[in-house]
Protein backbone atom coordinates (compact mmCIF):
# COMPACT_ATOMS: atom_id res chain seq x y z
CA UNK A 1 0.00 0.00 0.00
CA UNK A 2 1.03 3.54 -0.12
CA UNK A 3 0.59 6.59 2.00
CA UNK A 4 3.65 5.69 3.96
CA UNK A 5 7.32 6.52 3.83
CA UNK A 6 9.69 4.68 1.51
CA UNK A 7 13.01 4.25 3.23
CA UNK A 8 16.20 2.69 1.95
CA UNK A 9 15.81 -0.02 4.55
CA UNK A 10 12.92 -1.39 2.46
CA UNK A 11 15.26 -2.05 -0.47
CA UNK A 12 18.95 -1.94 0.48
CA UNK A 13 21.39 -1.09 -2.28
CA UNK A 14 22.23 -4.72 -3.13
CA UNK A 15 18.58 -5.37 -3.90
CA UNK A 16 18.29 -2.22 -5.93
CA UNK A 17 21.15 -3.64 -7.96
CA UNK A 18 19.70 -7.15 -8.22
CA UNK A 19 16.42 -5.57 -9.28
CA UNK A 20 18.19 -3.58 -12.02
CA UNK A 21 19.90 -6.73 -13.20
CA UNK A 22 16.58 -8.59 -13.26
CA UNK A 23 14.96 -5.82 -15.20
CA UNK A 24 17.76 -5.36 -17.71
CA UNK A 25 18.10 -9.11 -18.24
CA UNK A 26 14.36 -9.48 -18.70
CA UNK A 27 14.29 -6.72 -21.27
CA UNK A 28 17.24 -8.26 -23.10
CA UNK A 29 15.75 -11.77 -22.93
CA UNK A 30 12.29 -10.73 -24.02
CA UNK A 31 13.56 -8.52 -26.81
CA UNK A 32 16.03 -11.07 -28.13
CA UNK A 33 13.45 -13.79 -27.53
CA UNK A 34 10.93 -11.97 -29.71
CA UNK A 35 13.57 -11.57 -32.33
CA UNK A 36 14.61 -15.24 -32.23
CA UNK A 37 10.98 -16.21 -32.37
CA UNK A 38 10.42 -14.13 -35.44
CA UNK A 39 13.19 -11.91 -36.82
CA UNK A 40 11.22 -8.74 -37.46
CA UNK A 41 14.13 -6.89 -39.00
CA UNK A 42 17.29 -8.10 -40.69
CA UNK A 43 20.87 -8.39 -39.59
CA UNK A 44 20.47 -9.10 -35.90
CA UNK A 45 20.18 -12.84 -35.33
CA UNK A 46 23.76 -13.44 -34.22
CA UNK A 47 23.58 -10.52 -31.80
CA UNK A 48 20.11 -11.53 -30.57
CA UNK A 49 21.24 -15.04 -29.79
CA UNK A 50 24.44 -13.81 -28.17
CA UNK A 51 22.39 -11.40 -26.06
CA UNK A 52 20.01 -14.16 -25.04
CA UNK A 53 22.83 -16.53 -24.17
CA UNK A 54 24.61 -13.98 -21.98
CA UNK A 55 21.51 -12.67 -20.24
CA UNK A 56 20.23 -16.16 -19.50
CA UNK A 57 23.28 -16.96 -17.40
CA UNK A 58 23.27 -13.56 -15.73
CA UNK A 59 19.63 -13.78 -14.69
CA UNK A 60 20.05 -17.28 -13.26
CA UNK A 61 23.12 -16.24 -11.27
CA UNK A 62 21.40 -13.04 -10.16
CA UNK A 63 18.29 -14.85 -9.02
CA UNK A 64 20.28 -17.47 -7.18
CA UNK A 65 22.31 -14.71 -5.52
CA UNK A 66 19.10 -12.85 -4.60
CA UNK A 67 17.76 -15.96 -2.89
CA UNK A 68 20.96 -16.60 -0.95
CA UNK A 69 21.24 -12.94 0.02
CA UNK A 70 17.75 -13.08 1.50
CA UNK A 71 19.23 -15.20 4.27
CA UNK A 72 21.84 -12.69 5.40
CA UNK A 73 20.83 -9.20 4.23
CA UNK A 74 18.48 -7.33 6.53
CA UNK A 75 15.54 -5.37 5.19
CA UNK A 76 12.66 -3.43 6.70
CA UNK A 77 10.03 -5.56 8.32
CA UNK A 78 7.16 -3.10 7.95
CA UNK A 79 5.93 -0.61 5.40
CA UNK A 80 7.38 2.82 6.08
CA UNK A 81 9.64 1.56 8.82
CA UNK A 82 13.39 1.57 9.40
CA UNK A 83 13.25 -1.43 11.65
CA UNK A 84 15.09 -4.31 9.93
CA UNK A 85 15.32 -8.07 10.10
CA UNK A 86 16.62 -10.84 7.83
CA UNK A 87 15.01 -10.45 4.44
CA UNK A 88 13.87 -14.07 4.14
CA UNK A 89 11.24 -13.35 6.78
CA UNK A 90 9.51 -11.08 4.29
CA UNK A 91 9.23 -14.01 1.91
CA UNK A 92 7.63 -16.43 4.28
CA UNK A 93 3.99 -16.22 5.34
CA UNK A 94 3.62 -13.42 7.88
CA UNK A 95 1.20 -12.68 10.65
CA UNK A 96 0.12 -9.36 9.09
CA UNK A 97 -1.08 -11.05 5.90
CA UNK A 98 -3.07 -13.77 7.60
CA UNK A 99 -6.70 -13.81 6.46
CA UNK A 100 -5.97 -10.96 4.06
CA UNK A 101 -5.56 -12.69 0.69
CA UNK A 102 -9.27 -12.79 -0.06
CA UNK A 103 -9.69 -9.24 1.27
CA UNK A 104 -6.89 -8.04 -1.00
CA UNK A 105 -8.58 -9.60 -4.01
CA UNK A 106 -11.84 -7.94 -2.97
CA UNK A 107 -10.03 -4.64 -2.59
CA UNK A 108 -8.55 -4.76 -6.06
CA UNK A 109 -11.88 -5.79 -7.55
CA UNK A 110 -13.50 -2.78 -5.88
CA UNK A 111 -15.63 -4.87 -3.55
CA UNK A 112 -14.34 -2.97 -0.54
CA UNK A 113 -13.28 0.60 -0.03
CA UNK A 114 -10.51 0.58 2.54
CA UNK A 115 -7.01 -0.62 1.88
CA UNK A 116 -6.02 -3.83 3.59
CA UNK A 117 -3.47 -4.17 6.35
CA UNK A 118 -0.45 -6.06 5.13
CA UNK A 119 3.16 -6.84 5.78
CA UNK A 120 5.85 -5.16 3.69
CA UNK A 121 4.71 -7.25 0.76
CA UNK A 122 0.96 -7.86 0.60
CA UNK A 123 -0.34 -11.38 0.16
CA UNK A 124 -0.81 -11.12 -3.60
CA UNK A 125 2.50 -9.37 -4.05
CA UNK A 126 4.26 -12.07 -2.12
CA UNK A 127 2.69 -14.84 -4.15
CA UNK A 128 3.71 -13.08 -7.35
CA UNK A 129 7.32 -12.49 -6.24
CA UNK A 130 7.69 -16.04 -4.98
CA UNK A 131 6.18 -17.46 -8.14
CA UNK A 132 8.82 -15.75 -10.26
CA UNK A 133 11.49 -17.97 -8.67
CA UNK A 134 10.28 -21.37 -9.89
CA UNK A 135 9.06 -19.72 -13.09
CA UNK A 136 12.49 -18.33 -13.89
CA UNK A 137 14.13 -21.67 -13.18
CA UNK A 138 11.50 -23.42 -15.28
CA UNK A 139 12.16 -20.95 -18.08
CA UNK A 140 15.86 -21.71 -17.73
CA UNK A 141 15.08 -25.41 -17.94
CA UNK A 142 12.98 -25.08 -21.09
CA UNK A 143 15.66 -22.76 -22.50
CA UNK A 144 18.53 -25.17 -21.90
CA UNK A 145 16.41 -27.95 -23.38
CA UNK A 146 16.39 -26.11 -26.73
CA UNK A 147 20.01 -24.97 -26.43
CA UNK A 148 22.32 -26.95 -28.73
CA UNK A 149 25.21 -27.47 -26.30
CA UNK A 150 22.97 -28.75 -23.48
CA UNK A 151 19.96 -30.36 -25.15
CA UNK A 152 21.51 -33.81 -25.31
CA UNK A 153 22.12 -34.02 -21.57
CA UNK A 154 19.87 -36.65 -20.08
CA UNK A 155 17.99 -34.23 -17.87
CA UNK A 156 17.05 -32.06 -20.84
CA UNK A 157 16.61 -34.76 -23.50
CA UNK A 158 14.26 -36.57 -21.13
CA UNK A 159 12.15 -33.43 -20.89
CA UNK A 160 12.21 -33.01 -24.66
CA UNK A 161 10.92 -36.55 -25.14
CA UNK A 162 8.27 -35.92 -22.52
CA UNK A 163 6.78 -32.84 -24.19
CA UNK A 164 7.02 -34.45 -27.62
CA UNK A 165 10.14 -32.82 -29.05
CA UNK A 166 11.94 -29.50 -29.37
CA UNK A 167 9.16 -27.74 -31.25
CA UNK A 168 6.81 -28.17 -28.32
CA UNK A 169 9.54 -27.12 -25.90
CA UNK A 170 10.08 -23.95 -27.91
CA UNK A 171 6.37 -23.23 -27.75
CA UNK A 172 6.41 -23.69 -23.97
CA UNK A 173 9.46 -21.42 -23.69
CA UNK A 174 7.70 -18.89 -25.87
CA UNK A 175 4.50 -18.98 -23.79
CA UNK A 176 6.51 -18.60 -20.61
CA UNK A 177 7.85 -15.37 -22.05
CA UNK A 178 4.29 -14.08 -22.15
CA UNK A 179 3.85 -15.14 -18.54
CA UNK A 180 6.85 -12.96 -17.64
CA UNK A 181 5.58 -10.09 -19.72
CA UNK A 182 2.18 -10.23 -18.04
CA UNK A 183 3.83 -10.58 -14.62
CA UNK A 184 6.02 -7.55 -15.24
CA UNK A 185 3.09 -5.50 -16.48
CA UNK A 186 0.96 -6.28 -13.43
CA UNK A 187 3.92 -5.92 -11.10
CA UNK A 188 4.99 -2.52 -12.45
CA UNK A 189 1.39 -1.37 -12.40
CA UNK A 190 0.57 -2.47 -8.87
CA UNK A 191 3.87 -1.24 -7.45
CA UNK A 192 3.23 2.24 -8.75
CA UNK A 193 -0.54 2.55 -8.75
CA UNK A 194 -0.73 5.14 -5.98
CA UNK A 195 2.31 7.21 -6.83
CA UNK A 196 5.79 6.74 -8.21
CA UNK A 197 7.51 6.74 -4.84
CA UNK A 198 8.05 2.97 -4.81
CA UNK A 199 9.91 3.34 -8.13
CA UNK A 200 11.99 6.19 -6.72
CA UNK A 201 13.29 3.90 -4.04
CA UNK A 202 13.81 0.78 -6.13
CA UNK A 203 15.39 2.56 -9.11
CA UNK A 204 16.87 5.80 -7.78
CA UNK A 205 17.29 4.66 -4.18
CA UNK A 206 15.68 7.95 -3.24
CA UNK A 207 13.71 8.10 -0.01
CA UNK A 208 10.26 9.74 0.18
CA UNK A 209 8.20 10.32 3.26
CA UNK A 210 4.75 9.44 2.00
Amino acid at each position, binding site marked *: *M*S*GHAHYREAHPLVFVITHYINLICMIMLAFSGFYI*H*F*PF*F*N*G*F*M*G*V*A*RGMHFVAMYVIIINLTYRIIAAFFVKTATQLGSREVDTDIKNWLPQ*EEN*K*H*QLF*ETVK*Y*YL*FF*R*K*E*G*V*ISAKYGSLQKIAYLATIPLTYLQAYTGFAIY*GPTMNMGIFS*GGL*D*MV*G*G*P*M*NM*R*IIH*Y*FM*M*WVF*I*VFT*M*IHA*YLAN*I*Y*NLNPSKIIFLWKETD*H
Partner: protein
Amino acid sequence: MAQEAHGALHDLLEVRGVTRRDFLKYCGSVAAMLGLSETMAPQIAAALEGAQKLLPALWINGGSCTGCTESIAQVDSPDVATIVLDYLSFEYFETIMATAGTQAEHNITKRVEEGGYIVIYEGSVMTGFEGRAQTAGTPDKTGLAILEEVASNALAVIAVGSCAVDGGWVKAHPNPAGATGVAAWLQKQNIKTPVVNLPTCPVNPEWIVAMVVQLLLVADRDVDKFVAATKWVTREYADEVTDASVSLLMPAGIYGQSIHDNCPRRGHFENGEFVDVLGSEQEAMGYCLYKVGCKGPQTFTQCPVTRWNRRVSWCVEAGSPCIGCGGLNWVDNNAPFLMRMSDMQLGGALGNVQPGTVGAVVGGVAAAALVAHGLGMKAAGRVGDGPPMETAKAYDRKRGAKKGGDK
Protein backbone atom coordinates in the same frame (compact mmCIF):
# COMPACT_ATOMS: atom_id res chain seq x y z
CA MET B 1 43.84 -49.58 -51.77
CA ALA B 2 45.22 -48.93 -55.23
CA GLN B 3 44.86 -52.53 -56.28
CA GLU B 4 41.41 -53.74 -57.07
CA ALA B 5 40.01 -56.80 -55.45
CA HIS B 6 38.26 -58.56 -58.26
CA GLY B 7 35.07 -59.59 -56.58
CA ALA B 8 31.49 -59.60 -57.70
CA LEU B 9 31.13 -55.99 -56.70
CA HIS B 10 33.97 -54.88 -58.90
CA ASP B 11 32.25 -56.38 -61.93
CA LEU B 12 28.95 -54.84 -60.97
CA LEU B 13 30.51 -51.43 -60.63
CA GLU B 14 32.29 -51.78 -63.93
CA VAL B 15 29.17 -52.90 -65.74
CA ARG B 16 27.32 -49.90 -64.40
CA GLY B 17 30.10 -47.49 -65.19
CA VAL B 18 30.89 -46.43 -61.65
CA THR B 19 34.51 -45.39 -61.25
CA ARG B 20 36.66 -46.59 -58.40
CA ARG B 21 36.96 -42.99 -57.25
CA ASP B 22 33.20 -42.52 -57.05
CA PHE B 23 32.97 -45.74 -55.17
CA LEU B 24 35.53 -44.76 -52.56
CA LYS B 25 33.92 -41.38 -52.17
CA TYR B 26 30.64 -43.10 -51.61
CA CYS B 27 32.16 -45.40 -49.00
CA GLY B 28 33.42 -42.27 -47.27
CA SER B 29 29.91 -40.90 -47.01
CA VAL B 30 28.69 -44.25 -45.71
CA ALA B 31 31.40 -44.05 -43.06
CA ALA B 32 30.11 -40.62 -42.05
CA MET B 33 26.57 -41.95 -41.70
CA LEU B 34 27.83 -44.73 -39.48
CA GLY B 35 29.59 -42.21 -37.31
CA LEU B 36 33.01 -43.47 -38.43
CA SER B 37 35.92 -41.43 -39.67
CA GLU B 38 36.03 -41.01 -43.44
CA THR B 39 39.44 -42.65 -43.37
CA MET B 40 37.47 -45.87 -42.87
CA ALA B 41 36.31 -45.66 -46.50
CA PRO B 42 38.89 -48.16 -47.82
CA GLN B 43 37.95 -50.71 -45.15
CA ILE B 44 34.30 -50.34 -46.04
CA ALA B 45 35.14 -50.69 -49.70
CA ALA B 46 37.18 -53.80 -48.99
CA ALA B 47 34.40 -55.28 -46.91
CA LEU B 48 31.88 -54.60 -49.64
CA GLU B 49 34.14 -56.10 -52.26
CA GLY B 50 34.84 -59.17 -50.21
CA ALA B 51 31.23 -59.95 -49.41
CA GLN B 52 30.07 -63.18 -50.94
CA LYS B 53 26.65 -64.17 -49.75
CA LEU B 54 23.44 -62.29 -50.24
CA LEU B 55 21.25 -61.53 -47.26
CA PRO B 56 17.62 -62.58 -47.66
CA ALA B 57 15.22 -59.73 -47.04
CA LEU B 58 11.48 -59.21 -47.00
CA TRP B 59 10.24 -55.76 -47.91
CA ILE B 60 6.82 -55.36 -46.37
CA ASN B 61 4.47 -52.49 -47.10
CA GLY B 62 2.11 -51.37 -44.38
CA GLY B 63 -0.02 -48.26 -44.52
CA SER B 64 2.26 -46.52 -46.97
CA CYS B 65 2.14 -44.33 -50.03
CA THR B 66 5.01 -46.35 -51.55
CA GLY B 67 7.11 -43.19 -51.54
CA CYS B 68 9.92 -44.97 -49.75
CA THR B 69 9.95 -47.64 -52.44
CA GLU B 70 10.09 -44.89 -55.04
CA SER B 71 12.92 -43.35 -53.14
CA ILE B 72 15.13 -46.42 -53.25
CA ALA B 73 14.11 -47.61 -56.69
CA GLN B 74 16.26 -45.10 -58.52
CA VAL B 75 17.37 -47.18 -61.44
CA ASP B 76 17.55 -44.65 -64.21
CA SER B 77 21.34 -44.40 -64.03
CA PRO B 78 24.11 -46.37 -62.34
CA ASP B 79 24.34 -45.66 -58.68
CA VAL B 80 26.40 -47.19 -55.92
CA ALA B 81 23.43 -47.29 -53.58
CA THR B 82 21.41 -49.55 -55.84
CA ILE B 83 24.41 -51.82 -56.26
CA VAL B 84 24.91 -52.13 -52.55
CA LEU B 85 21.24 -52.81 -52.10
CA ASP B 86 21.73 -55.67 -54.54
CA TYR B 87 23.43 -57.41 -51.63
CA LEU B 88 19.97 -57.91 -50.29
CA SER B 89 18.07 -60.67 -51.92
CA PHE B 90 14.47 -59.51 -51.76
CA GLU B 91 12.26 -62.54 -51.56
CA TYR B 92 9.17 -60.44 -51.16
CA PHE B 93 8.72 -56.90 -52.42
CA GLU B 94 5.13 -56.23 -53.33
CA THR B 95 5.68 -53.26 -55.57
CA ILE B 96 8.44 -54.62 -57.77
CA MET B 97 8.41 -58.43 -57.56
CA ALA B 98 7.21 -60.55 -60.42
CA THR B 99 5.59 -63.24 -58.30
CA ALA B 100 2.06 -62.79 -57.09
CA GLY B 101 -0.71 -64.53 -55.20
CA THR B 102 -0.14 -67.78 -53.32
CA GLN B 103 3.41 -68.14 -54.59
CA ALA B 104 4.34 -64.75 -53.14
CA GLU B 105 2.66 -65.59 -49.83
CA HIS B 106 4.58 -68.84 -49.80
CA ASN B 107 7.86 -66.94 -50.16
CA ILE B 108 7.11 -65.21 -46.90
CA THR B 109 6.11 -68.32 -44.97
CA LYS B 110 9.10 -70.25 -46.20
CA ARG B 111 11.55 -67.51 -45.36
CA VAL B 112 10.10 -67.02 -41.89
CA GLU B 113 10.51 -70.73 -41.23
CA GLU B 114 14.12 -70.75 -42.38
CA GLY B 115 15.10 -67.55 -40.57
CA GLY B 116 18.32 -65.59 -41.17
CA TYR B 117 16.65 -62.65 -42.90
CA ILE B 118 15.89 -59.01 -42.28
CA VAL B 119 12.61 -57.21 -42.69
CA ILE B 120 12.40 -53.80 -44.22
CA TYR B 121 9.05 -52.35 -43.28
CA GLU B 122 7.64 -49.36 -45.11
CA GLY B 123 4.52 -47.53 -44.02
CA SER B 124 2.55 -47.17 -40.85
CA VAL B 125 1.02 -49.95 -38.82
CA MET B 126 -2.68 -49.26 -39.16
CA THR B 127 -4.43 -50.77 -36.20
CA GLY B 128 -7.84 -49.23 -36.84
CA PHE B 129 -10.88 -51.15 -38.04
CA GLU B 130 -9.53 -54.29 -36.35
CA GLY B 131 -6.51 -54.16 -38.61
CA ARG B 132 -8.65 -54.38 -41.74
CA ALA B 133 -7.34 -51.08 -43.01
CA GLN B 134 -4.45 -53.21 -44.25
CA THR B 135 -6.14 -56.18 -45.84
CA ALA B 136 -6.28 -57.24 -49.44
CA GLY B 137 -7.69 -60.48 -50.74
CA THR B 138 -7.55 -62.62 -47.65
CA PRO B 139 -9.77 -60.96 -45.10
CA ASP B 140 -8.48 -63.19 -42.33
CA LYS B 141 -4.88 -62.19 -42.71
CA THR B 142 -4.48 -58.55 -41.78
CA GLY B 143 -1.39 -56.47 -42.29
CA LEU B 144 -0.91 -56.64 -38.54
CA ALA B 145 -0.73 -60.43 -38.68
CA ILE B 146 1.81 -60.28 -41.51
CA LEU B 147 4.00 -57.85 -39.59
CA GLU B 148 3.91 -60.06 -36.50
CA GLU B 149 4.70 -63.14 -38.55
CA VAL B 150 7.69 -61.68 -40.39
CA ALA B 151 9.07 -59.80 -37.42
CA SER B 152 8.95 -62.70 -34.99
CA ASN B 153 11.80 -64.65 -36.59
CA ALA B 154 13.75 -61.85 -38.29
CA LEU B 155 17.33 -60.89 -37.44
CA ALA B 156 16.20 -57.29 -37.33
CA VAL B 157 13.48 -55.03 -38.64
CA ILE B 158 14.47 -51.84 -40.38
CA ALA B 159 11.56 -49.42 -40.13
CA VAL B 160 12.06 -47.16 -43.13
CA GLY B 161 10.39 -43.80 -43.40
CA SER B 162 8.61 -41.83 -40.71
CA CYS B 163 5.39 -43.83 -41.12
CA ALA B 164 7.09 -47.04 -40.07
CA VAL B 165 8.89 -45.23 -37.28
CA ASP B 166 5.93 -43.77 -35.39
CA GLY B 167 3.00 -43.66 -37.81
CA GLY B 168 4.27 -40.66 -39.76
CA TRP B 169 1.75 -38.47 -41.52
CA VAL B 170 -0.77 -41.29 -41.46
CA LYS B 171 -1.10 -40.83 -37.72
CA ALA B 172 -1.57 -37.06 -37.93
CA HIS B 173 -4.51 -35.81 -35.90
CA PRO B 174 -7.18 -37.23 -35.72
CA ASN B 175 -5.64 -40.51 -36.90
CA PRO B 176 -8.78 -42.38 -37.95
CA ALA B 177 -6.80 -45.45 -39.06
CA GLY B 178 -5.17 -45.84 -35.65
CA ALA B 179 -1.75 -45.67 -37.29
CA THR B 180 1.34 -46.28 -35.22
CA GLY B 181 4.94 -47.36 -35.75
CA VAL B 182 6.58 -50.77 -36.01
CA ALA B 183 8.49 -50.48 -32.73
CA ALA B 184 5.34 -49.54 -30.81
CA TRP B 185 3.35 -52.40 -32.28
CA LEU B 186 6.02 -55.05 -31.80
CA GLN B 187 6.49 -53.88 -28.23
CA LYS B 188 2.78 -54.31 -27.64
CA GLN B 189 2.87 -57.81 -29.16
CA ASN B 190 5.90 -58.58 -27.02
CA ILE B 191 8.08 -59.35 -30.06
CA LYS B 192 11.66 -58.57 -29.12
CA THR B 193 13.31 -58.39 -32.54
CA PRO B 194 15.46 -55.21 -32.66
CA VAL B 195 13.95 -52.40 -34.71
CA VAL B 196 16.22 -49.89 -36.40
CA ASN B 197 14.38 -46.65 -37.16
CA LEU B 198 15.11 -44.53 -40.20
CA PRO B 199 12.69 -41.60 -40.28
CA THR B 200 12.18 -38.91 -42.98
CA CYS B 201 9.41 -38.92 -45.51
CA PRO B 202 10.39 -40.75 -47.64
CA VAL B 203 13.42 -42.55 -46.28
CA ASN B 204 16.76 -41.58 -47.74
CA PRO B 205 18.06 -44.68 -49.56
CA GLU B 206 21.64 -43.90 -48.56
CA TRP B 207 20.70 -44.49 -44.96
CA ILE B 208 19.35 -47.93 -45.70
CA VAL B 209 22.62 -48.61 -47.46
CA ALA B 210 24.56 -47.50 -44.38
CA MET B 211 22.57 -49.87 -42.19
CA VAL B 212 22.97 -52.74 -44.63
CA VAL B 213 26.71 -52.15 -44.79
CA GLN B 214 26.86 -52.09 -41.04
CA LEU B 215 24.83 -55.27 -40.54
CA LEU B 216 26.24 -57.25 -43.43
CA LEU B 217 29.86 -56.33 -43.32
CA VAL B 218 30.93 -54.55 -40.20
CA ALA B 219 28.85 -56.78 -37.92
CA ASP B 220 29.07 -59.90 -40.07
CA ARG B 221 25.28 -60.45 -39.97
CA ASP B 222 25.41 -60.80 -36.24
CA VAL B 223 22.61 -58.66 -34.86
CA ASP B 224 24.03 -58.39 -31.36
CA LYS B 225 27.32 -57.24 -32.82
CA PHE B 226 25.44 -54.87 -35.11
CA VAL B 227 23.60 -53.27 -32.22
CA ALA B 228 26.79 -53.10 -30.17
CA ALA B 229 28.98 -51.71 -32.97
CA THR B 230 26.62 -48.91 -34.00
CA LYS B 231 26.30 -45.66 -32.10
CA TRP B 232 22.65 -44.98 -31.39
CA VAL B 233 20.43 -42.22 -30.21
CA THR B 234 17.33 -43.32 -28.38
CA ARG B 235 14.17 -41.28 -28.73
CA GLU B 236 11.47 -41.92 -26.19
CA TYR B 237 7.87 -41.12 -27.05
CA ALA B 238 4.42 -41.79 -25.67
CA ASP B 239 2.51 -43.75 -28.28
CA GLU B 240 -1.17 -42.91 -28.24
CA VAL B 241 -2.35 -45.98 -30.10
CA THR B 242 -0.66 -48.59 -27.93
CA ASP B 243 -0.77 -46.34 -24.89
CA ALA B 244 2.82 -47.13 -24.01
CA SER B 245 6.17 -45.40 -23.78
CA VAL B 246 8.29 -46.50 -26.73
CA SER B 247 12.06 -46.21 -27.18
CA LEU B 248 13.19 -45.75 -30.74
CA LEU B 249 16.68 -46.79 -31.76
CA MET B 250 18.19 -44.56 -34.46
CA PRO B 251 21.76 -44.50 -35.75
CA ALA B 252 23.47 -41.51 -34.11
CA GLY B 253 25.60 -40.81 -37.19
CA ILE B 254 22.42 -40.00 -39.10
CA TYR B 255 20.05 -38.65 -36.44
CA GLY B 256 22.39 -37.12 -33.90
CA GLN B 257 22.74 -33.56 -35.19
CA SER B 258 20.26 -30.91 -36.17
CA ILE B 259 19.82 -29.85 -39.78
CA HIS B 260 20.36 -26.27 -38.64
CA ASP B 261 23.85 -27.13 -37.37
CA ASN B 262 24.97 -28.47 -40.75
CA CYS B 263 23.03 -26.13 -42.97
CA PRO B 264 24.81 -24.28 -45.80
CA ARG B 265 22.44 -21.33 -45.18
CA ARG B 266 23.45 -21.11 -41.55
CA GLY B 267 25.84 -18.20 -42.07
CA HIS B 268 22.92 -16.14 -43.32
CA PHE B 269 20.89 -17.17 -40.28
CA GLU B 270 23.55 -15.78 -37.96
CA ASN B 271 23.85 -12.65 -40.07
CA GLY B 272 20.11 -12.16 -39.88
CA GLU B 273 19.62 -12.49 -43.62
CA PHE B 274 16.29 -14.12 -44.25
CA VAL B 275 14.07 -15.11 -47.13
CA ASP B 276 10.68 -13.39 -46.77
CA VAL B 277 9.08 -14.71 -49.91
CA LEU B 278 9.64 -18.09 -51.50
CA GLY B 279 11.04 -17.85 -55.00
CA SER B 280 12.61 -14.47 -54.29
CA GLU B 281 16.09 -13.25 -55.02
CA GLN B 282 17.06 -13.77 -51.36
CA GLU B 283 16.23 -17.42 -51.71
CA ALA B 284 18.47 -17.72 -54.73
CA MET B 285 21.24 -15.95 -52.83
CA GLY B 286 21.10 -18.71 -50.23
CA TYR B 287 19.53 -16.67 -47.43
CA CYS B 288 18.07 -18.51 -44.45
CA LEU B 289 14.54 -19.91 -44.62
CA TYR B 290 13.74 -19.53 -40.90
CA LYS B 291 11.05 -16.91 -41.40
CA VAL B 292 9.26 -18.96 -44.00
CA GLY B 293 8.92 -21.77 -41.54
CA CYS B 294 12.15 -23.77 -41.75
CA LYS B 295 12.04 -26.52 -39.11
CA GLY B 296 15.78 -27.24 -39.45
CA PRO B 297 16.54 -26.07 -35.89
CA GLN B 298 14.14 -28.67 -34.47
CA THR B 299 14.89 -31.53 -36.84
CA PHE B 300 17.69 -34.00 -36.31
CA THR B 301 18.78 -35.66 -39.52
CA GLN B 302 21.84 -35.67 -41.68
CA CYS B 303 20.01 -34.33 -44.77
CA PRO B 304 22.51 -31.48 -45.37
CA VAL B 305 25.43 -33.92 -45.38
CA THR B 306 23.99 -36.96 -47.15
CA ARG B 307 21.68 -34.87 -49.34
CA TRP B 308 18.98 -36.34 -51.53
CA ASN B 309 18.34 -37.75 -54.99
CA ARG B 310 21.76 -39.25 -55.41
CA ARG B 311 23.31 -36.52 -53.34
CA VAL B 312 22.35 -33.85 -55.86
CA SER B 313 20.59 -31.48 -53.49
CA TRP B 314 18.15 -31.42 -50.60
CA CYS B 315 15.13 -29.46 -49.42
CA VAL B 316 16.79 -26.38 -47.95
CA GLU B 317 19.49 -26.18 -50.59
CA ALA B 318 16.76 -26.32 -53.22
CA GLY B 319 15.08 -23.34 -51.55
CA SER B 320 12.33 -25.05 -49.61
CA PRO B 321 12.15 -24.78 -45.84
CA CYS B 322 12.68 -28.08 -44.04
CA ILE B 323 9.24 -29.32 -43.03
CA GLY B 324 10.66 -31.51 -40.29
CA CYS B 325 9.75 -34.83 -41.87
CA GLY B 326 12.55 -36.58 -39.94
CA GLY B 327 11.05 -35.76 -36.54
CA LEU B 328 8.53 -37.66 -34.48
CA ASN B 329 4.81 -36.99 -34.92
CA TRP B 330 6.13 -34.80 -37.64
CA VAL B 331 2.99 -33.43 -39.23
CA ASP B 332 1.29 -32.29 -36.04
CA ASN B 333 4.59 -30.96 -34.76
CA ASN B 334 5.41 -28.95 -37.84
CA ALA B 335 2.26 -27.90 -39.67
CA PRO B 336 1.63 -25.30 -41.00
CA PHE B 337 4.86 -25.90 -42.86
CA LEU B 338 5.47 -22.28 -43.82
CA MET B 339 5.04 -20.94 -40.28
CA ARG B 340 7.74 -20.65 -37.65
CA MET B 341 5.79 -22.65 -35.09
CA SER B 342 3.28 -25.45 -35.31
CA ASP B 343 -0.39 -24.73 -34.72
CA MET B 344 -1.93 -25.56 -31.38
CA GLN B 345 -4.83 -27.86 -32.04
CA LEU B 346 -7.37 -26.43 -29.64
CA GLY B 347 -10.31 -28.08 -31.33
CA GLY B 348 -13.92 -26.96 -31.18
CA ALA B 349 -14.75 -23.45 -32.29
CA LEU B 350 -11.15 -22.32 -31.77
CA GLY B 351 -9.67 -24.83 -34.20
CA ASN B 352 -5.96 -24.47 -34.93
CA VAL B 353 -4.29 -21.42 -33.45
CA GLN B 354 -0.73 -20.11 -33.71
CA PRO B 355 1.10 -19.77 -30.38
CA GLY B 356 1.94 -16.15 -31.28
CA THR B 357 -1.74 -15.35 -31.56
CA VAL B 358 -2.45 -16.87 -28.16
CA GLY B 359 0.45 -14.96 -26.60
CA ALA B 360 -0.58 -11.66 -28.14
CA VAL B 361 -4.20 -12.13 -27.01
CA VAL B 362 -3.14 -12.95 -23.45
CA GLY B 363 -0.78 -9.96 -23.37
CA GLY B 364 -3.38 -7.66 -24.92
CA VAL B 365 -6.12 -8.73 -22.53
CA ALA B 366 -3.79 -8.21 -19.56
CA ALA B 367 -2.79 -4.74 -20.78
CA ALA B 368 -6.41 -3.75 -21.38
CA ALA B 369 -7.43 -5.08 -17.97
CA LEU B 370 -4.69 -3.05 -16.27
CA VAL B 371 -5.73 0.14 -18.05
CA ALA B 372 -9.36 -0.47 -17.08
CA HIS B 373 -8.29 -1.24 -13.54
CA GLY B 374 -6.19 1.91 -13.38
CA LEU B 375 -9.17 4.01 -14.46
CA GLY B 376 -11.20 2.29 -11.76
CA MET B 377 -8.58 3.04 -9.14
CA LYS B 378 -8.57 6.65 -10.24
CA ALA B 379 -12.37 6.82 -10.14
CA ALA B 380 -12.37 5.27 -6.69
CA GLY B 381 -10.09 8.07 -5.56
CA ARG B 382 -7.32 5.71 -4.53
CA VAL B 383 -4.58 7.22 -6.68
CA GLY B 384 -2.28 9.65 -4.96
CA ASP B 385 -1.90 8.74 -1.36
CA GLY B 386 -3.81 5.50 -1.56
CA PRO B 387 -7.08 4.47 -0.05
CA PRO B 388 -8.08 5.13 3.52
CA MET B 389 -6.59 2.24 5.45
CA GLU B 390 -8.57 -0.14 7.59
CA THR B 391 -7.76 0.05 11.27
CA ALA B 392 -8.23 -3.66 11.83
CA LYS B 393 -8.49 -6.61 9.52
CA ALA B 394 -11.95 -7.52 8.31
CA TYR B 395 -11.40 -10.92 9.87
CA ASP B 396 -10.67 -9.34 13.23
CA ARG B 397 -13.54 -6.93 12.99
CA LYS B 398 -15.95 -9.78 12.39
CA ARG B 399 -14.68 -12.31 14.86
CA GLY B 400 -12.38 -10.20 17.01
CA ALA B 401 -15.12 -9.02 19.33
CA LYS B 402 -15.87 -12.60 20.27
CA LYS B 403 -12.62 -14.53 19.97
CA GLY B 404 -9.84 -12.01 19.87
CA GLY B 405 -8.91 -12.60 16.14
CA ASP B 406 -5.30 -12.45 14.99
CA LYS B 407 -4.25 -9.65 17.27
